């Protein structure tokens, strides 16, 4: 398009009018609008960038294939800087524009959006973030974690340790975590599991943002733990691994929450971090069929967004997983309403009837029901071998009985509150 002063002025006027004049857009019956108000600039930064790249590439692939029975997806991407009020603004604007699903990928923003999403009946996707108790679909009908909660992740890690040790009796497990609600979340569950499996459990909080942990790790060394779990994100994870190495704690005894990827390994040193374990909710690497398809149909044709070498990294694949689950939910909704437009309620219905979905082998079989929004809580343990993450176990879920007890306690508290 040729640009002269007139088009510029027009565009500038349009831009100035965007925040003021309500946009009256014609609803396309076969367009499904998704709102991605995520944090690209403050806390989640590269996590969001890679996650969002995966989501966008996946939906590009679907749209390039002609959509799902003619239905196409449109993604609105907005930066929130992890600020609640900016998340709320983006959410309310999405609502006006007819968005049927919002994905904030931020614990504080999603927590603040929960009451609004429930009241407005807009699907709120909280993959690997947000409230763990949103797994209770009866209390949170429109909040969709679609992924193993932090409690399920901790349980899988403990289960792996138990199998390695053939029983954890008398063993010492340390939890080194960031001192925020997110970091403290697994504590209650681990206390219960410590009683159940008879191991000694101790917590070691470090203050946010987590870049300074030296004092904590000397204490960890003094305990001589058999296993260490690290619970943080971004810079905190990197500092944890560096301090662990400095204090002589063997890497293959350290197990991490899901937030650990190739990017962190590159900072810690790919060889220095060899052996570290992490929870994995989705297969990494470029081997999964879906990732190969994206490579061939999107990236190879120059339609991908972002750097091509990101394709197949942990957070990219998590983004693909979220997108694939959303698309599967939409497919089920479209099957029921082939004429469209797909409303938020219909998409919700679709998402809550996903059954044994594996995204062509990239995920453990995920079944989401009206009662269970977590999808089974299955995951596996993967180990860093210096080059890539190698799965060390099968897809499994552990101690879901305790977890569901905790989910129900917490969600019934939620139901009682706010009245």
């Amino acid at each position, binding site marked *: *398009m040729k*640009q002269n002063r007139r*088009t*510029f002025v*027009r*565009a*500038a006027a*349009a*831009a*100035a*009018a*965007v*925040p*003021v004049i*309500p946009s009256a857009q014609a609803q396309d019956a076969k367009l499904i609008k998704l709102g991605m108000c995520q944090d*690209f*600039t403050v806390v989640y930064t590269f996590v969001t*960038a890679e996650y*969002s790249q995966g989501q966008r590439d996946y939906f590009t692939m679907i749209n390039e294939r002609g959509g799902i029975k003619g239905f196409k997806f449109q993604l609105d*991407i*907005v*930066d929130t*800087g992890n*600020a*609640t*009020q*900016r998340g*709320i*603004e983006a959410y*309310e*604007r999405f*609502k*006006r524009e007819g968005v049927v699903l919002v994905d904030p990928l931020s*614990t*504080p923003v999603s*927590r*603040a959006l*929960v*009451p*609004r999403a429930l009241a407005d009946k807009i699907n709120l996707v909280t993959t690997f973030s947000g*409230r*763990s*108790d949103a797994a209770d679909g009866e209390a949170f009908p429109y909040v969709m974690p679609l992924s193993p909660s932090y409690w399920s992740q901790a349980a899988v890690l403990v289960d792996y340790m138990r199998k390695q040790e053939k029983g954890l009796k008398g063993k010492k497990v340390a939890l080194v975590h960031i*001192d*925020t*609600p997110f970091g*403290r*979340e697994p504590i*209650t569950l681990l206390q219960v599991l410590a009683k159940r499996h008879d191991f000694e459990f101790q917590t070691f909080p470090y203050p946010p943002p987590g870049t300074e942990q030296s004092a904590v790790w000397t204490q960890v060394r003094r305990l001589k733990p058999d296993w260490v779990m690290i619970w943080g994100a971004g810079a905190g994870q990197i500092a944890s691994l560096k301090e662990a190495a400095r204090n002589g704690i063997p890497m293959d005894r350290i197990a991490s929450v899901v937030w650990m990827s190739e990017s962190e390994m590159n900072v810690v040193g790919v060889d220095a971090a060899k052996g570290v374990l992490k929870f994995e909710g989705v297969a990494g690497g470029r081997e999964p069929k879906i990732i190969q398809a994206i490579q061939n149909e999107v990236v190879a044709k120059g339609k991908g*967004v*972002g750097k091509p070498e990101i394709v197949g990294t942990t957070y990219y694949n998590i983004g693909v997983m979220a997108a694939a689950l959303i698309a599967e939910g939409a497919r089920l909704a479209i099957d029921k309403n082939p004429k469209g437009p797909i409303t938020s309620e219909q998409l919700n219905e679709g998402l809550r009837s996903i059954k044994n979905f594996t995204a062509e082998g990239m995920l453990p079989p995920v079944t989401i029901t009206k009662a269970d929004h977590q999808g089974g809580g299955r995951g596996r343990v993967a180990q860093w071998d210096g080059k890539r993450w190698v799965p060390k176990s099968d897809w499994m879920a552990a101690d879901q009985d305790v977890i569901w007890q*905790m989910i129900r306690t*917490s969600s019934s*508290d*939620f139901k009682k*509150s*706010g*009245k």
Partner: protein
Amino acid sequence: MFYRRAGLRHTRYTQDRQLWPLPFDRFLLGLAIVLLVLAPAFLPSLYIGTYLMPWLLWTTATLGLNLLMGVAGQVHLGYGAVMAIGAYGALHATRSGVPFEFALLIGGLLSAAIGVVFGAAALRVKGLYLAISTLAMQYLVDYVIIHVPAISGGTQATLSAPPVRLLGFALTGDSAYYWFALAMCGLVTMFMLNVRRTSYGRALAAVREKDFAAEIIGVSTFRYKLSVFWVSSFIGGVAGTLFAFCYYKAVTPEQFHLELSIQMLATVIVGGMGSVLGSYFGAALILLAPVVLNNGLAGLAKGLSIPINADIAAHAPLVLYGGLIVGFLLFEPLGLAKIYANLRNYFLVWPFRHARR
């Protein structure tokens, strides 16, 4: 021309001392009030609920901090914590059955009581040292909230705010909440406008200019420093309560972190220390500029059909935002209120360039 001053003769002290002696100022004020009150009639609820209301709430909080910083000259780096105390206090009060009107007061009083304890540091230290001791308040309050599940609301650390019932009426819809926020903001604004004309305000000004000089002329710095922390924290607590009930509706500790305290501090400085109007301008710039810039830039890219990289789309508004803040402060270090005052002074004598002011 606009500000016609010819023929205005104030023959009584009350006339001379009124807040807005010029009719044109009164007209502007009236216009602003009418527009704000009628806003829900001509603006879609998106702009009421997510632009105007948070702006008013942020302004209310800024006014409270401005009393402390601008009027009494005491720095506070933990104002977010003050607001958090109010929000959590009021939330727990309503959850145990206290009516909202009283919960609002409880929130304010709780903030005031705890704020004044930390304000006691101001009796011994000032300037940067006071900033650091109030920063300690921020960290202590954050720590307590996160570590006491009874306060933060269990493992998920989220408390939902019940819908507000005011004097027997339930507030429903964005407009009702907006009007309520507007009324509260108006109340605090009236207090701030008038406090400087009282002996209390003059005593605070004396403390601000030189505390030991104030002591020499008979102004008890002990009393006034503590009382200004009390009053300012009370306003902060009320503002925090309004944040929780009118806007967020679900309270998590992150909402009142250090970032909010710094945002508040920036709002006061960018708006203009001690200026009531400046608090409105500052809150508008600091709170709304990132959102407006973000949407505006995205709209511009779309209008010109430039395929804009998501990375740039996310970071460019931040660069502009920083540039705006630095630019305004370079252009006028006394803040946005001073820019307005300069404009007003220009128009006071317009179309003439020079006149006795």
